[in-house]
């Protein structure tokens, strides 16, 4: 065992805040970093100390490995927590951290290297006798055509170093294969500095099911109830829920045990997630990849289990053993949790990112409503980073109540003038298919007609017009008031202001 006293959080936005909050609860010092563009961003106020690390461009700040390690040493940190994104799955950085005598709050770097390569991680899963999706590597274009033909179109091209849909392409026709591989390679290069891509069978009734797990350094493992993350746009999740409405408890247990097996085979410790594709028609699951980091959607698991995953990451990094058994964990699970990702994107305009200043910002509050946010009134949605404003998580005794709570909470989430996907999310939580738990990864495209551009008649037209006129009046009145007030400036009677 070793004691961590001060942690540098090498991230920004909601995840930096979420990590720092737990550090405070543990009595551990939190050191923040920020780019030039983040000088006034929300996360720095949660740090005990914060350091400027470079230009807005991520490469020159949040991806600047040397600079971050320098800051960690200068600030006398004994550990680095990478959050998700940026350097979180960079095994070179993880090694560099340890070579500099700092603790890496995450899995072993060699394990990260092996799992980070998707092709390699498939081999690890196969070694553990866990099924992987049919597919293979791309040696040359002819072989790629051969493999794609054998699997049958549509097929998927995926980045070997990838994640989050970056570098992923769906190909419907062999004539598009070459161009798609090219684009995917470029995207992969841009996002992960590694152009390797591979081909996978595309499953029609596919469900994205994933298992959060924990492994300590003594071989004790815990798997949590599955999260279903099938509601996606641009191959990126926007809604996650746990438990899944798709699979039964027996399958959940089977997949959970498979996850632990894969992680152990890979020599993993810390928190991680194994992603699976579940073919509902065939009732089969396939290993997809391991996310060797804390995930965006980890709060869903926290809400139904009562654990603090970041605190447990710290425990494991401090070489403490896990304290509860799988059976104890299973029995304490209760209720249903859902997460909505609040992206600054215009859902009615092909999810075009909506850049700019948030002038009006009001978060929902209440029992069982959790908002993990990196923004407040006056924050700028910046071009340089992910347009995730916040994660809205609800917990309720059952799925029906959770969906209603989510719908009410989304209605109470007021953001302007930046556009967000809240209107789309509200439509989803009112959609019969979603409410019935009958959705797969193609949900959004299948029901696009119901979900987008659905302007209903308003119930509040009179009220809205009255309010518009009232505000006009008030504005006018305020000017009159301010004017008369300025004639007798109570506050400034002493008038000693020096410019």
């Amino acid at each position, binding site marked *: 065992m070793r004691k961590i006293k001060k942690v540098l959080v090498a991230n920004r936005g909601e995840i930096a805040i979420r990590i720092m909050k737990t550090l405070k609860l543990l009595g551990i010092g939190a050191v923040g970093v920020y780019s030039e563009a983040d000088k006034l961003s929300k996360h720095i106020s949660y740090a005990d100390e914060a350091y400027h690390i470079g230009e807005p461009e991520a490469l020159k700040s949040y991806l600047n490995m040397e600079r971050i390690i320098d800051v960690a040493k200068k600030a006398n940190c004994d550990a680095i927590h990478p959050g998700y994104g940026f350097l979180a799955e960079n095994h070179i950085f993880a090694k560099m951290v340890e070579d500099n005598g700092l603790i890496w709050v995450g899995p072993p770097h060699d394990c990260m290297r092996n799992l980070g390569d998707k092709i390699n991680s498939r081999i690890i899963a196969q070694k553990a006798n866990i099924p992987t999706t049919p597919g293979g590597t791309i040696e040359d274009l002819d072989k790629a055509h051969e493999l794609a033909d054998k699997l049958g179109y549509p097929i998927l091209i995926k980045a070997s170093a990838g994640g989050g849909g970056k570098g992923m392409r769906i190909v419907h026709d062999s004539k598009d294969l070459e161009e798609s591989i090219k684009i995917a390679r470029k995207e992969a290069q841009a996002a992960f500095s590694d152009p390797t891509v591979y081909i996978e069978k595309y499953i029609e009734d596919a469900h994205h099911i994933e298992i959060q797990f924990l492994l300590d350094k003594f071989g004790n493992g815990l798997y949590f109830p599955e999260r279903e993350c099938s509601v996606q746009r641009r191959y990126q999740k926007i809604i996650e829920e746990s438990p899944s409405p798709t699979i039964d408890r027996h399958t959940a247990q089977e997949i959970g045990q498979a996850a632990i097996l894969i992680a152990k085979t890979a020599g993993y410790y810390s928190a991680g997630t194994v992603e699976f594709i579940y073919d509902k028609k065939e009732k089969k699951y396939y290993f997809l990849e391991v996310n060797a980091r804390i995930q965006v959607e980890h709060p869903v698991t926290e809400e139904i289990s009562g654990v603090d995953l970041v605190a447990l990451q710290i425990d494991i990094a401090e070489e403490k053993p896990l304290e509860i058994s799988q059976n104890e964990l299973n029995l304490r699970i209760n209720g249903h949790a859902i997460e909505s990702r609040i992206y600054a994107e215009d859902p009615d305009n092909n999810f075009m990112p909506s850049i700019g200043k948030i002038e009006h910002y009001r978060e929902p509050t209440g029992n069982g409503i959790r908002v993990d946010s990196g923004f407040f009134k006056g924050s700028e949605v910046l071009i340089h980073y992910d347009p995730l404003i916040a994660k809205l998580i609800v917990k309720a005794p059952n799925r029906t109540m959770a969906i209603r709570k989510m719908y009410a909470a989304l209605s109470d989430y*007021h953001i302007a003038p930046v556009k967000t996907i809240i209107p789309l999310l509200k439509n989803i939580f009112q959609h019969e298919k979603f409410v019935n738990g009958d959705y797969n990864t193609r949900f959004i495209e299948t029901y696009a007609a119901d979900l987008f551009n659905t302007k209903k008649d308003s119930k509040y037209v009179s009220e809205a017009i009255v309010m518009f*006129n009232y505000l006009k009046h008030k504005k006018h009145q305020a000017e009159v008031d301010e004017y008369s007030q300025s004639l007798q400036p109570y506050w400034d009677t002493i008038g000693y202001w020096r410019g």
Partner: protein
Amino acid sequence: MEKLQVNGNIVEYEISSKENEFTITLNAEKNTYSVFAYGDEYLLFNAEENKFQVLDVYRDKNKVFLWAGDEELLVEEEQEDISAENVELSENIIKSPMPGIIKEIKFEEGDMVKKGNTIIVLESMKVLNELKSSIDGVIKKIHVSVNAQVGPLELLVEIDGGE
């Protein structure tokens, strides 16, 4: 009669007020609301029907965003619809659909292009977006270079349709 756009629809109404009491006639229906500050929001009370509604508001110049119940509404002063004249233009030009960085320009000025050809690859928030030509034609002018950072709706490429 006065006019406003509510959620893009033009609405005609009559309104009169006395202190914080507003009487509105809309679709031949007359209602009176009292407006009160209510936390950071407003409460509209319709005494006759014993109905109340809480509204959160944000005013952006001559637009007002409102949140009422489970709805978000946009109320604007009536505006000329200027989109019509842009429709034709949009055929011949490629604008940036969002801010980003030009990662690749696939043609040069003078090149012939076909409808559907990818002309520009724009990276925004780590995703590559292919911007395609919507007509057959010849590249007339390229306004940007690779690695340039562009704002939203910036003119990137002009294509001569040959008419």
